[in-house]
């Protein structure tokens, strides 16, 4: 239990091991630990950033989608309106054309009727005249009775 030169030996051991630890053990391990700490911190912040970016992109996508939907609805609306307009226009046009055709046909019919009537009148007058000539022979003078005959023909 005596104090002796073992003290000196142990102090030398102690100094050696502390020196070794200070020189070759502590710096590399603590350096690696710090480096890893930094790496992890960077990774975490990168993850945070990515998450934020994703959020932003999602918001943007939603906004884009909404805009597209609105535009599509607007276009559909316009198209509908335009279609209605075209139909209306076509209807009007068709009606006008029909009326025009009807008027034209009516005009032609009237003309034909008039022509036929005129012709008929002439023929009836000639027929009546010839009939009357035959009946009355010479008694009836075309010139003197012309007025009367014409009146007759007008009654037809």
């Amino acid at each position, binding site marked *: 239990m005596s104090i002796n030169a073992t003290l000196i030996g*142990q102090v030398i051991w*102690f100094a050696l091991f502390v020196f*070794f630890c200070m020189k070759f*053990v502590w710096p590399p*391990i*603590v350096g690696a630990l710090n480096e890893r700490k930094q790496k992890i911190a960077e990774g975490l912040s990168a993850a945070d950033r990515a998450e934020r970016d994703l959020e932003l992109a999602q918001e943007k996508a939603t906004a884009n989608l909404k805009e597209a939907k609105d535009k599509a609805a607007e276009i559909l609306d316009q198209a509908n309106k335009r279609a209605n307009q075209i139909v209306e226009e076509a209807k009007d046009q068709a009606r006008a054309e029909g009326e025009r055709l009807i008027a034209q046909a009516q005009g032609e019919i009237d003309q034909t009727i008039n022509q036929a009537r005129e012709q008929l009148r002439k023929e009836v007058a000639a027929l009546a005249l010839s009939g009357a000539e035959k009946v009355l022979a010479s008694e009836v003078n075309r010139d003197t009775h012309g007025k009367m005959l014409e009146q007759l023909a007008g009654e037809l």
Partner: protein
Amino acid sequence: MAGDTQQTSGEYIKHHLTNLTYGKHPDGTWGMAANAEEAADMGFWAFHVDSLAWSGGLGILFCLMFFMVARRASSGVPSGFTNFIETIVEFVDNTVRDTFHGKSALIAPLSLTIFCWVFLMNLMDLIPVDFIPTVVMDWGLGIHYHKIVPSTDPNITLAMSFSVFFLIIFYSIKVKGIGGFIGELTLHPFTPPNAVAAIFLVPINLILETVSLLAKPISLGMRLFGNMYAGEFVFILAAAMLGTYQFVGSWPWAVFHILVITLQAFIFMVLTIVYLSMASEDH
């Protein structure tokens, strides 16, 4: 029991508490001491070969273990043993950071060395008391005395605590200057307002401060020695009384002793840090 079966319990215990000593005999020659009396006659110039060999071996084991990890330390994913070593390093680093606020490249590696080395030396306590002595005595080497727990040798613990004491003085002078260090020793704890009284109180202050300064390394070394010596003594008593069935006594004590081993290593480290941080702080 190891060796001679004719031993009495007293002789057995005494045998287990004797170091293997190499030193200068009173007649001037150097050699191994044959027994405890011869070792005591050697005076100061004697070396406890077993203590020095085991403490050196365990220190080298510590250095190799940590150096292996340090060599392939990287910021990648650590695995297994690397992880274990890094956990210890981080633990020591945090403890130093919490207590020591100055900047020093020495103090953290010093703390790591103290913690691991003292832990390993204390750990030898858990090896059954007769195992290694029997191996070196009966199985060929013929070495009569062998203590395998270096921290039950006051030379070992006091050598470490006085190394720390040297560092305390070194840091005190480095941070405060020689004048500051002397001032700290002579002008505290009594600080009267007028100069005459201060001069009058210098001797008293010097005595008080010297005592408190010297108490640090002595209590530091003797605390570790006392705890480990007492623990070792219980193991030896169990072996002496129970013989072959010593595990009945020593196993529960070993389980409890795991706590003491770790705690004493930790206390030695923390007190070293505290003393050094006190030394490098100005009041």
